[in-house]
Structures are given as structure tokens and as C-alpha cells.
């Protein structure tokens, strides 16, 4: 993400200019403080907030044999929802979640979340996962009757995951790579076989 790259470049420049040697995380901590939970200013989240959103989106839908959330522009979508679509209460749940993750990271490893290795990032994120009510064997349809996690008082992790999934699977990039885009199928075949790729089609 260009803002993250620009910011890293800027910090590097500032650090060199000041002639001090601080770990990247210390610099982040100094710059952002507890402000990962700060509301947007001027219609925008801060660079540290955007960096951690990007890191989290990349954890949830990474690049594999197909592009991941970063390439599909998910951080920008999450940003637009958090800034413009969320209610103030929902936004605060989300931003407090970011700040909580960052505080956890700094507390355990004295390193900002975005600078953890992937295993550490995954471990912190996994700890936010609510207890599972059933694996693939015990799939319960009851969850489908729940309201979308994107809205309301549902916790940060579910909001983050739902927004990342929505942003990714509705992107033009995912429609052409991870999924099969079929805007005009031209027929209905109720006995069609699942293709070798196994991909879902979307319109």
C-alpha cells in the first residue's frame, strides 16, 4: 500500500536526519501513542491505522495462488466503511480493536503489530477468534440468521473479518481470479458438475 510505503520512507528519513537509532516499533509507538483508537480527521484515518488495517487484511485473505486482499484494494474499502459508513459507536469498536491489538503486540514483544513476523501476527489475531460453535462437521445454520457483523455492537474481530471478506470477494480482481465472473450465464443447468477448479461463480 503506497501510504504505508511512503510512511516507512518518511520515518527512515526522519530517523536518519535526527541521528538517533530507535527500533521501528519504538518510533511507531512514539508517533502513534495510543492514537490507533483516534477518530478520523479530515475524513481519513491515520497512516498507522491504515498500516495495521492493511496488515490485518493481508492476514485474513493473503496472496496465495491468487491475489490477496492487499492487491484487491481491501484496505481502501475498509477505510471507506470505517470512516464514512460506520456509526460513531461502531467506528470506536473497530478502532479500539486496532489499538488493543497494537497494545498487545507492544506489551508482549515491544514491537508494533505491523512489524511482527507473520506467525506472531497470526497468533495475536487468532486469540480474538470467538470460541467455535462447530467445525465443518457441525455446521450450524443458526449463524446465518444473525445480523451482519459489519454493523451493530459485534466485536472488532468479526467486523474486521466480515469487511475484509466483503471487500475481497466483491472486488473486480477477485471476480476474475479467485472466483469466476459470469454476469450473463445465458442458461440454467441444475445438474452441472463442479468444475475442476472448484471455483464459485459470481455475477
Amino acid at each position, binding site marked *: 500500500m503506497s501510504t504505508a510505503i511512503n510512511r516507512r520512507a518518511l520515518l527512515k528519513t526522519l530517523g536518519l536526519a535526527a541521528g538517533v537509532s530507535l527500533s521501528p516499533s519504538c518510533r511507531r509507538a512514539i508517533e502513534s501513542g495510543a492514537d490507533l483508537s483516534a477518530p478520523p480527521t479530515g475524513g481519513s484515518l491515520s497512516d498507522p491505522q491504515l498500516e495495521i488495517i492493511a496488515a490485518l487484511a493481508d*492476514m485474513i485473505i493473503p496472496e496465495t495462488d491468487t491475489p490477496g486482499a492487499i492487491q484487491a484494494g481491501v484496505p481502501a474499502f475498509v477505510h471507506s466503511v470505517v470512516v464514512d459508513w460506520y456509526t460513531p459507536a461502531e467506528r470506536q469498536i473497530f478502532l479500539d480493536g486496532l489499538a488493543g491489538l497494537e497494545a498487545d503486540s507492544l506489551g508482549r514483544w515491544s514491537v508494533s503489530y505491523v512489524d511482527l513476523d507473520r506467525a506472531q501476527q497470526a497468533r495475536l489475531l487468532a486469540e480474538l477468534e470467538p470460541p467455535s460453535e462447530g467445525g465443518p462437521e457441525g455446521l450450524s*445454520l443458526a449463524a446465518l440468521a444473525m445480523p451482519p457483523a459489519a454493523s451493530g455492537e459485534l466485536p472488532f474481530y468479526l467486523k474486521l473479518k466480515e469487511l475484509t471478506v466483503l471487500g475481497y470477494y466483491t472486488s473486480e480482481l477477485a*471476480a476474475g481470479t479467485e472466483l469466476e465472473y459470469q454476469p450473463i450465464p445465458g442458461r440454467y443447468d*441444475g*445438474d452441472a458438475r463442479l468444475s475442476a477448479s472448484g*471455483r464459485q461463480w459470481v455475477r
Partner: protein
Amino acid sequence: MTVTPGCRRPAGSGCAEVSGYEFDAIVVGSGISGGWAAKELSEKGLRTLVLERGKPLEHGAGYLGEHRPAWDTPYRGLPLRDLYREQYPVQSTSYAFDENTRHFWNNDAENPYDYDPEHPFEWLRADVTGGRSILWGRQVYRWSDLDFEANLTDGFGIDWPIRYADIEPWYAYVERFIGVSGQPEDLPQLPDGEFLEPMKLNVVERHVRDRIAETYPERRMTIGRVAVLTEPLPHSDRGVCHYCGPCQRGCSVGAYFSSLSSTLPAARATGNMTLEADTLVEGLDYDPELGRVTGVRVVNTRTRERRRVTARLVFLCASTIGSAQILLNSRSDAFPEGLANSSGVLGRYLMDHTYGAGARGLFAGFDEFYPQGSRPNGIYIPRYRNLDAGDSLPFVRGFGFQGGASRLDWQAMARLTPGFGPAFKSSLRMPGPWVMNLIGFGECLPRRENRMSLHPAKVDRFGMPLVRFDFSWSDNERAITGQIQTDAAEMLRAAGAVEVTTYDVGKVGGSCIHEMGTARMGHDPSESVLNAFNQAHDVPNLFVTDGSAMVSSSCVNPSMTYMALTARAADHAVGQLREGRL
């Protein structure tokens, strides 16, 4: 009164050389019923004015959301909550309401209504030319004598003045014009029609159909009968379905029937139709000496200009609520309680179908199958309860099921799948398990206390009294809703479903968008508004042919019955006109 030059209609059209009227007929509303009235009357040579409250909408060009991909949709389809809460609190409850269809719907803030807060009523309305025919579910079924004799048999409501034999030729006439795809089943409670090639049940639906038939021989699952073309029509240039899915966004090839794709073009082709959008009808003028409607009072909704138009004949097709509102607002010394309301039943006996209850379950063993294409149609299980007097059930009448089987998509699976990362992403790539849903549509009894009326004080932005609803379900509808869940679950289990769950989302009146019955037909003018030809008992040149005419609700989708009644009424009206009786 404006006197227009002599009309140029063919001889025998019933139009006098100098009629003194601006038009031969005025049709109020351009939805399913109004479109049919416009087509039939103008094809029979009548100079016909169609008045539409909603905005103009052009077939094709007006379908702004058609084929719009998700990434071009605001917030990828997340609801615009502040806007919907402030301006569309009722309309946004519909499955068919989103940013790809919002421009078709009524703005609740601009066009409010009133209801008993203890018993909310959802009045879902279009605000465009073509009305709800743009947004409808397209399911079309013939009613049977099980329906037309229901009131007489069990005593709830008055008897229908018609039977299946009276409407049967008109069902066929409508089916030939609109195009109905469906499967003949030879069931007396759901008569077959003149069908185009049926759409196909998918592999799981056929499995469920066969297992249900083994366990419950009287329960027949068939493919939905739907006004969507599966093959070309000889008389029409409408295209066949390309299975893109969300018909309610509009279909520029005209694969599904709507006023815009079908009836209004036919009416326009005669050269006899004039259509005015943005034109609200306030009321009808009644001349007590002539005993007839002599004018229609209208407001231009953009300029607020008021005027009066005249015709020999008026067809009210403004919807069950809209038509009754206009009549109730047409008070005179002769009809102080509303035009054609000497019976006092106008606005009463309001009905809707019960909706929002059913069951769903998972099916294993079909993982190698994955249907291709979005079929704009589902399954139908016609009524099987209370077909014989011998059934001992805690309710009268019955219900049918709609629904279907499909595989859960990424959105559903993401909510059901824990974790994140490569394994999570990989697990969402394939479609999820098969789910079959059965949702019940239950008959609603006609009850005097269920009504719409005019608010005594509140008026809308045009000075029109607000509609007020007093509607609640009775024990009979509640018992039906319970049986729907029991039966849906037991059929799914009999078919081998696992994780079967019943649901009842507690839908209120109106939410099925099958409102009916505010100006019912009947033999006796003291207890009905309309006669057997949808003609007002009190006012011979006034016809009401939308859902307000319905005497009972059946459990079967009503739209095709409105179309057939409209065509039949138009034939009757023009016959009377030619005989000099109107």
C-alpha cells in the same frame, strides 16, 4: 367540461361522434392491472388516458442497476442505513430493495402513512411508471374453485360472485400474452395453464421432490410457474431469459413480464393511449343526476397544478390501497362515506398472505454438483391441507410453499467458517454445502376489522388524507404459520436433510406485498362494492380491477388473477359501451 373534436375511432367502438368527453376511458395506475386495462381498452378502440402517480420510467434506459457488478455498487451493497432509516424505513425491508432498485421505490418520508403502532403494516409501493410490475416476484398461478368457493364453504367472508369457469378463458388469454413457464401437474387445486417450457428443478430439488412424494403422496413439488420467457413468444419481440438473476433491477430484453416490457407497448402501438406520469389522482367526481363518474381530479406531483379530466369510463387500477384511498377521498352528498360505498365495506376486509415462516436444512451427498446460472424462480408445493372436509386441523384454508435448493456462497460460508489465512481463503473458494429452504405462503381470512381508512386529520404533501391501517393477524393465520413450520421441517427431514431449523421472522401485514380486498366483489350490493365484472354496484361506469376486488385471499399468488379479472372487466365494459348501456 371540455368538448373535444369528434373522435376518429372505428365505427362500433362505442365512441360517440362528439362525446363531450376528453377520453373514452381513464385508467388510474400503470402497474400489473393498469397496464392490462390500458392494453385491452385501447386495443378495443377506446381513446385511453393512463394516469400514473410515479415518475416516468423508460424500458431499458431506466434500469440503472441492471447487470451492475458488485464493485460498482456503493459500499459493495452495504445498506445506506441513515438514508434508509430517514427516507425508506418501510421500503428497505423488502428483499428487492437495494441501491440497484431504490430508484423504483416509494420514498416513505415524502409519502407517509399511518398505522396502529401495536400492529404495524408495511405498505410497499413503487413510485415509477409500471408500478410494482417492475419489482414483482413474477410467480403466476391460476386460482381454483377451492379458492372461489372457500368463503361459501366455511362461512368466513361473503361468496365470490364468480367461479373458475368464469375466469378460466381469461387466465388462458393472459398466459398467452405474458408468457408463463411452468410444468403441468394435473392438480385440481392448482389448475394447469398454457405453459412455455418449464424451468428446471436442480439435482437436490428433484431428490427432495421424489422423497416427499414417497412419504406424502398428496404433496407435490413442482417448478415455480413464472412470467419469464423460456422461449420466444410469437406475438412479441421480448427476449428469453439469460439467467443473470435479479429481475427486480429491470430487464432491458424484457424477459420477465412487466407493464413496461409488455402491456404498455401494446397499448401504445394502437395509437389510442396517452400516458401521464407524475400525476396523482385525488378523487373522482360523481354526478348524482347522471348516476355516473364524470371526471377525475388530478395533481401534477412536480408542479402541483390541479386539473380535471373527463371520460366515459374509469378503471381504477391504483392498487388495493391506492384505489380504495381514491374512492374514500371521493366524498359527495350522494356518497358521504366515499364513492361507491353505499355498503360501507370500502377499505375493509383487507388481507395479505402470511409470510416469513418455514424451515431450512442441509443436504449431503451432492457435492459434485454446482448449478450454473441464476434461475429467477424456485420450487412450488401447492396446497395439500384442508382439500377435503374430512381434515381435522385447527385452522381453515391452507398454505403453499416456495423456496429452493442452492449451495451456500462465500458470504454465507465466511460467517460459518472460523479462522483466517490461506486455509480460510481456500475453504471459501469452493461453494458451500447444499441448503434447501421451504417458505410458506398462508391464506388470510377476510375480516371486517382489518381495514385501511383515511386519517381524519393528517394529510400528505398534496393535501390528500393519509392512509391509516388497522390490521392484525387472527388465530387462523397464526395456526397456519405454526403448521407451515411443522410441515416444512418434516418434509425436509423425510428427504434426508440434516441440521433442519424452522423459522418465523414475525412478518407483519403487508410484508408479503399481496394486499387484497378493500373493495370486494359480491352478489349483494349491501355487502360488496363491485359486481361479478368488477363494476361498482353504485356507479356503472366505474370499474376497479386490482387487488382491491378480491373476496378471499387464497394462499396462491394473486397477480395473474388481477390480470385476468382486468381483461374480463374491460371486455364487459366495452360490450356495455357498445350496447349503449354505459
